[in-house]
């Protein structure tokens, strides 16, 4: 038995020693990673479509710096350990020029440690955890608006448009998303003199919110902060309508999904929520109109927020390589840091941490349709 194992291992060694890698200088290699399988595979797919829209167009018009762009996609299945392996492959075996991704915050965070050490520029697509860009890593950039900025932008919006709102009641899902959102909002709202007077939480998947709504009603607040995902968000809106609560409702980016309006019906009419992308709030932006047009032509659907974030990330990458005028990673990093470009969500510039500086869009639902609440 032992002998056979020794033979197998020796053979495996020979097989592994097989063909080497051919170096090709004619293409610019870009590595992109995200979940292509597992629960979040839909987001990975959107990311891929968004990037391809940009890169296909660049390649069709002669490429970049006289070379074609080749995007290598890696599936992290939503797992940080796999994200690390993929990014190590991108940086050491594939020798990519830079990296786009990922989707979930833990995978992006795990990958950023590798890109920081290997000195490879990385632009995250949909990861919103603020702390990823606070690690002192100059190689990391982000297309999405980080969670802390989103809550602060929502608080600014309320203070500006509704100066009479001073006392708010919060209802939220009791997990890192809900807790993080309400904590961030409470902190940001303080400087506008807005106070959270009651906090009611629920467990994800709950269907009855009578207890929480009764307490919110008793608190006699000026408005409601709802940090939910769209399914629960729609049920809460229905519950509020049934209970005859008419004060304005301000929701999280979790409500920014077509299903919120579909499930909520007329109960969500008049409600507000923060969003990472909506064709309604971006309709005045030429890049957004182009994105919608191209998405319909190529994939026959409207872009979701991951499409838009990936599309913008790809635009930033192409623009930075063009301005750097070389494939030198440090030059590209410097060019990325100096980005000033029209994207599908606004003018893209990065702050010192690598986060985008445009303000978060806010939607108001009017007659079952998204409208731009900032107008």
């Amino acid at each position, binding site marked *: *038995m*032992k*002998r*056979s*194992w*020794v*033979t*197998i*291992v*020796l053979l*495996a*060694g020979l097989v*592994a*020693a097989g063909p080497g*890698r051919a170096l090709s200088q004619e293409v610019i290699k870009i590595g992109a990673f995200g979940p*292509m*399988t597992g629960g979040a595979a839909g987001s990975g797919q959107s990311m891929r479509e968004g990037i391809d829209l940009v890169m296909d167009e660049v390649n069709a018009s002669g490429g970049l710096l006289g070379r074609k762009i080749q995007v290598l*996609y*890696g*599936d992290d299945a*939503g*797992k*940080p*350990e796999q994200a*690390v*392996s*993929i990014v*190590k*492959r991108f940086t*050491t*075996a594939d020798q990519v020029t830079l990296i786009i991704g990922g989707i979930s*915050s*833990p995978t992006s*965070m*795990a990958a950023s*440690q590798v890109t920081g050490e290997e000195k490879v520029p990385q632009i995250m697509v949909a990861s919103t*955890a603020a*702390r990823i860009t606070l*690690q002192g890593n100059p190689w990391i950039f982000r297309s999405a608006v980080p969670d802390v900025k989103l809550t602060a932008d929502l608080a600014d919006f309320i203070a500006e448009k509704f100066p009479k709102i001073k006392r708010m009641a919060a209802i939220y899902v009791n997990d*890192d998303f809900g807790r993080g959102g309400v904590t961030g909002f409470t902190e940001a709202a303080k400087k506008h003199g807005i106070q959270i007077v009651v906090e009611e939480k629920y467990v994800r998947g709950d269907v009855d919110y009578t207890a929480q709504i009764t307490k919110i009603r008793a608190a006699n607040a000026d408005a409601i902060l709802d940090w939910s995902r769209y399914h629960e968000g729609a049920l809460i809106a229905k519950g509020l309508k049934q209970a005859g609560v008419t004060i304005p409702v301000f929701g999280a980016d979790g409500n920014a999904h077509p299903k919120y309006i579909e499930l909520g019906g007329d109960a969500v009419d008049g409600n507000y929520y923060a969003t990472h992308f909506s064709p309604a709030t971006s309709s005045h932006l030429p890049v957004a109109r182009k994105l919608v047009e191209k998405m319909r032509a190529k994939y026959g659907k409207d872009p979701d927020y991951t499409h838009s974030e990936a599309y913008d990330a790809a635009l930033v990458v192409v623009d930075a390589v063009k301005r750097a005028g070389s494939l030198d990673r440090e030059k590209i990093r410097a060019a990325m840091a100096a980005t000033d470009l029209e994207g599908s969500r606004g003018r893209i510039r990065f702050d010192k941490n690598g986060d985008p500086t445009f303000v978060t869009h806010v939607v108001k639902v009017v007659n079952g349709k998204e409208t731009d609440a900032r107008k």
Partner: protein
Amino acid sequence: MGGLARGRRPLLVLALVVLLLAIPWLLPQRYFLRVVDLGLVYAVLALGLQLLVGSAGQLSLGHAAFYGTGAYTSAILARKLGVPVEAAFLAGAVVAALLALTLVPVLRLRGNELAVATLGFGVIVHAVILNEEWLTEGPFGMMKIPPFRLGLLVFDTEFRFYYLGLAVTAATYLAFRRLTRSRFGRALEAIRQSEEAAVTSGINPVRYKSKVFVIAAFTAGLAGGLFAHLNRYLNPNDFTLTESINILVMVVVGGLRSLEGAIVGAMIIIFASEYLRAFKEYRLILFGALLVVFMALGAEGLRGLPAKLAAAARRPAPEPSDG
């Protein structure tokens, strides 16, 4: 069985040792070495589970709990408390072993019941890692874990880590080889075949099962420490039930009761899941198909492959299996 002349075996073993030591020089590609390093971590994990499942016949679905405990203990001690990494590494294994002691009351359970109890245990440990943010940094994971070091030696590259992983794997393998061939190993064998019969031969199953659980947990803790200082980033999602099942798959693919099989099984599963990435969305289908093929080899897994091939070569006409 082995038809090889006795005198040539030491030579083959020597060739294997030389090959193993030479791998990073022959194949210095960093991504390849990263995958091999990961394979070594899982080889240690699979060895521990092989002892438990293969030798003692105790099905555990909670191996990732001890793996995670070792990883987080070592990382927290080294990064947050500034404990020297080699000490933190050993502490991780000791804490994992101590945690296994809390399982002693459920070791009276057998078979499926024990499996479900260990599954529950795995869920609890994952929940603790996920929720105790002050200790583990919660769902965002822990960054900037220092690399392993031994005195002046720093194992901070894939190349250097390989030798650390190889040393721990080899030490675990040799220790388990001795163990399974000792009186202790024979007692486990007896328990695996029939607990009742073992009792009548004067063996106390709970005591032996406790010992083997503690040993398996200790090696899982070692593997966890290796992973923490190799990956240098830990996230609760890497220590779930899926991980426990993954390790179990390695053991079964390699062949139950074979220590060499556990190592080769770990390498095959890690290499398959990494290198199948080239097939994009077909990766999981191919991976699944690969598992089915391996299992079609029978209960012996890969371990039985050489013997089967040899038998097929000897017999020109296919004959019904003789079991």
